[in-house]
């Protein structure tokens, strides 16, 4: 089953981790055959911003963050995975595998 995954990353300094983790999640998702779009919220503001359509069509939302992220209300009614940056950094592949498993069980 191919999933549509969206997400947000935001780290404390907003310079590097935010973007590395975004890439790690997206790569892991794509390698597992899913579509994935991650919005980054860093010192330079929001990039690759999720559209209403992205969110409406998504199966799951991954929020990897160490600081408060903006726009969480956009995900009302969607399954949200809320984890620290470090977890996404260490375990991107098993994160995606676990999401697949749990969504299938629902």
């Amino acid at each position, binding site marked *: 089953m191919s999933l549509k995954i969206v997400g947000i990353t935001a780290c404390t300094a907003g310079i590097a981790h935010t973007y590395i983790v975004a890439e790690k999640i997206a790569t892991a998702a794509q390698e597992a055959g899913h579509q994935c779009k991650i919005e980054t919220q860093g010192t330079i503001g929001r990039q690759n911003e999720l559209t209403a359509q992205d969110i409406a069509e998504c199966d799951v939302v991954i929020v990897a963050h160490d600081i408060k992220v903006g726009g969480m209300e956009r995900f009302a009614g969607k399954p949200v995975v809320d984890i620290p940056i470090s977890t996404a950094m260490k*375990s991107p*592949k098993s994160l995606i595998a676990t*999401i697949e498993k749990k969504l299938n069980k629902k």
Partner: protein
Amino acid sequence: MGLRDILNEEIIDLNLKATTKDEVLHELAGHLKTAGYINDVESFVKDIYVREEEGITGMGNHIAIPHGKSTSVTKIGIAIGRTSHEIEWESYDGLPVNLIFLFCVSADGDFAKNHMMLLAELAGKLGNDARVEKLQKVETKAELLEVLLAEDAGVAENEVADAEEFDESLISFDL
């Protein structure tokens, strides 16, 4: 302006002599000073350590990206070093590092947004295992730049396992 414009061979060193984290930071900071990116090595390194105190910069996969905002920075850039020794470094996978990307960022709140976007772009590229695998193998600075600038990193030859298995209890989809 593109990523190529902030990458400068003068501040890339594929043969760092350093054997410790502190030596790595000083050696790379020395290159930044020589190339006119910072005006003082010690105060720059001190500011890097302030950021190091706040959290881990060893990204796993033998890569570290120390970064800090410092008033000693006069020009935003990124120093890149590779060591032949493995360097002890706090990292997400617990492994030492040998490839270091030292972000050189001005403490001035009015820093150039363009430059910061390019640093962000570069950071994103380092999240890709296939690209990192290639970076470990390059022999010249030109090759290193080529790998960093490539749009598509391709597929890693050796799959990199997660540093840690994801804790399934972190997800509950009971809506």
